[in-house]
C-alpha cells in the first residue's frame, strides 16, 4: 500500500511557509492607506465600469475543444502501457477512435474554430 503522506506533508509545508511569512511581515510593514492607493490600477483616468465583463466567445470555444481532446488523451493513456498485451485488437480499436477524433479535428479546422483574428 503506497503512502501519500509525503504529499500531504509537502502541501502543509508549502501552505505554512507563506502564511507564516505574511503574518510576520504584518508586524513590521507600514500601513498608510489612501484613496489614491485604493483605486484600480489602470491608466490614471477615473475607472469606468466593472472589470468582469462579457468576453469574446472564442475563449469558451477553446475550453470546449480542450475538453474533447483532453478526454481523448485520457483514453490513450491506459492503452499506451497495455499496447503489447492488447496487440492487434487494441491497435484497431485505438485506430478507429483516433480516426473519428481526427475527423472531428479536420471538421473544426475547416469551420474556422481554430483561427483567431
Amino acid at each position, binding site marked *: 500500500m503506497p503512502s501519500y503522506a509525503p*504529499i500531504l506533508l509537502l502541501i502543509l509545508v508549502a501552505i505554512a511557509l507563506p502564511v507564516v511569512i505574511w503574518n510576520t511581515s504584518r508586524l513590521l510593514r507600514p*500601513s498608510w492607506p489612501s484613496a489614491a492607493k*485604493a483605486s484600480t490600477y489602470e491608466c490614471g483616468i477615473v475607472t469606468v465600469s466593472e472589470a468582469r465583463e462579457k468576453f469574446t466567445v472564442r475563449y469558451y470555444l477553446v475550453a470546449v475543444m480542450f475538453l474533447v481532446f483532453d478526454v481523448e*488523451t485520457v483514453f490513450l493513456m491506459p492503452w499506451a502501457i497495455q499496447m503489447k498485451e492488447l496487440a492487434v485488437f487494441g*491497435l484497431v480499436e485505438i485506430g478507429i477512435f483516433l480516426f473519428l477524433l481526427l475527423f472531428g479535428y479536420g471538421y473544426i479546422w475547416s469551420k474556422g474554430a481554430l483561427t483567431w483574428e
Partner: protein
Amino acid sequence: MPTLAHLLHLSPETLWMVAKVLIVFGGPFTLASLLTWVERRGAAMIQDRIGPNRAALFGKWRLLGLPQIAADGIKAFLKEDLVPPHVNKLVFWVAPLLTFLPAVMGFAIIPFGQSFVSGGQTYHLSLLDPGNGMGMLYPLAIGSMAVYGVLTAAWSSNNKWSILGGMRASAQMVSYEIAMSLAVITIFMRAGAYDPHQIIQAQWGLWNVLPQFLGFLVFTTCMFAETNRLPFDFAEGEAEIVAGYLTEYGSMKFALMYLSEYVHMVTASALIVTLYFGGWRVPFVADPGVWLSVLAFLVKLLFFCWLFIWIRWTLPRFRYDQLMKLGWKVMLPLSMANFLFHAFLMFKRG
C-alpha cells in the same frame, strides 16, 4: 539514520520522509531564488549590460550581485501590503497559494538520484516511492492545476488588465496541454509504465531525446507555454497589459507569485530531464551511485533552467493569434504524428 531517528523518537521511515520533504521543498525553492539572480545577470550578459551589482553584504562584499536576492526579499517583506477595496479579499489571498502549490507539488514524483540500499533497506530518492500507481500522471494532473492560480488571481483582482491576462493565460495553458499529454503518452509507450523510475530505467543506453526528438521539441515548447515564460508570457505581457494578472499584487504576495514562476520553471526542467534526458543517468556509467547520479541530475536540471532564461532573452513575444495557431495547428498535429509514428514503430517491432 537509525541513530538520529532514535534520538528524535521517530521511526526511521518518518525521519526519511521528513528529510525528503525538506529536500523536495527546499531544493527547488532555493534554486528558484538563485534563478531570479541568474535571470537578471544572464539578461545583462546577453544584452551587454552589467546587471544588478550594487547590493553588497555590510556595504563591502558585492559577490557578483548575489546579495540582491536577500535585498529583494527584505524589500518585499517590509513593503506596505495593499489590498484594494475592489478586490474579492478571500480569493485575492488564496490565489498566490494556488499558484505556489502546483509549482512545488510537481517535483514530488521526480527521482533526483539513484535509489540506494543501506542497512538492508532501500531508499528511493524521490518523495513518492515507486509503485504508487500515479507515476507521471501526477505531475500532469498537478501541472494543469496551475491555471487556477492565474485565473483566481486575475478574477479576484477585478482589474481589466488582470482579467485580460488571466483569460489569455488560461486559454493558452489549456491549448498546449493536449500536445504535451500526447508527447508524454509516447514516452509511456516506450517505457511501458507510468512510473518515472521505470521510465528512467528504460532510457539506459539511449535517452528518449534521440528516438523522440520531435516529442521533445513539442514537450519543451509546451512547457514554456505552461510556465508562462517568454515567448509565451501572455499572462503578464508587460508591454501590452501592464503586469497582467499580477497588476494588483504587491509586497510579499507578489514575491510569492514571482517565485512560483521560477519554482515552476525548475519543476518543468526536472520533467524534461526525467522524460527525455535519462533523469539521473550518467552516459556510459551503468551504476553511478548516489552522489554522481544526483550531480548528473543537477547538471541537466540547471542546463534546462538556463535554457528557459536564455530563450526568454533571445526570442520576442508572439502575437496572440500566432500563439493559438502554433498550439492548435502546429503542435497538436506534430505531437499526434509523433505518437502515431511511434505507435506503429513499436507495433512492427512487436
